């Protein structure tokens, strides 16, 4: 993190060094996996939905791709320790006289829990759905926020 500040590199996207390294590392993993015959997937708990957890100094951010799920079909519970996301994805029947050529989209129930690395403020959680992507912003508790200390 220090090098990023020193070099004053603009953040996120492909300009962001640590993110790019991480992607590179995963691509190397994929490559080794392909060579050894198996595939090494991205690290995952193996529970739907795949979830990304990020943080800045003020908040934790939880993101998950949930296409076709309306916000009122989701149940989100946040406690001091973690978040749980559950719901059901329904794919309506398309009538009797249809012939399917491909069926790759799955329906079913899901439930996922994630623990936060630090303490959070449960009262100010914000959740939104946009284009099938869930985003939950969970503010860190005052005690858990980093403080700048001035050296006298």
């Amino acid at each position, binding site marked *: 993190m220090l090098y990023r500040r020193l070099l004053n590199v603009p953040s996120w996207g492909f300009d962001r060094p640590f993110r790019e390294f991480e992607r590179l590392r995963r691509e190397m993993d994929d490559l080794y996996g392909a060579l050894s015959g198996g595939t090494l997937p991205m690290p995952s708990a193996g529970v739907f939905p795949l979830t990304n957890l990020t943080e800045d100094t003020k908040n934790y*951010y939880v993101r998950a791709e949930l296409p076709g799920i309306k916000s009122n079909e989701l149940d989100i519970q946040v406690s001091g320790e973690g978040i749980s996301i559950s719901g059901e994805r329904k794919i309506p029947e398309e*009538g009797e006289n*249809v012939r399917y050529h491909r069926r790759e989209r*799955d*329906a079913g129930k899901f439930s996922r829990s994630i623990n936060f690395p630090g303490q959070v403020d449960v009262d100010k959680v914000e959740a939104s759905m946009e284009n099938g992507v869930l985003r939950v912003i969970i503010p860190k508790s005052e005690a858990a926020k980093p403080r700048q200390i001035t050296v006298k």
Partner: protein
Amino acid sequence: MSDKESKNLQVKPKQKSTSHAEQTRPGLIFTPNVDIFETDHDITLLADIPGVSADDLTIDLRKNVLTLTGEVKPSEGADEEAVMIEYDTGKYHRQFTLSSVIDQSKIDAKLNDGVLRLTLPKVREATPRKIEVTAG
């Protein structure tokens, strides 16, 4: 499993595109999951493209080749650091060759909650006409 309702969703990692066509811009490309079904009148395609807004979706049909391309704009803030990353975002891209002739003027595309619903009406077969022959 007989009871369809009790089925649990399994994790399906996002499928990276295996197309080797060279890209001009760096970035990841994913193959969206689709359902395709057909009736006597039309072909319907449903595609899961979470993160794509209507403005960033391109649907192109020429010479029976249907191309879907969707861009995902990163929503992350400038100061966010990764704690746990299980999926990547990038472009969605997929191509299909259609066997029926499609009435281009009546194609209907709707994007709701990250799911594209594309209705492709087939061209009506010319209705048989009876030709009366009159004796002259």
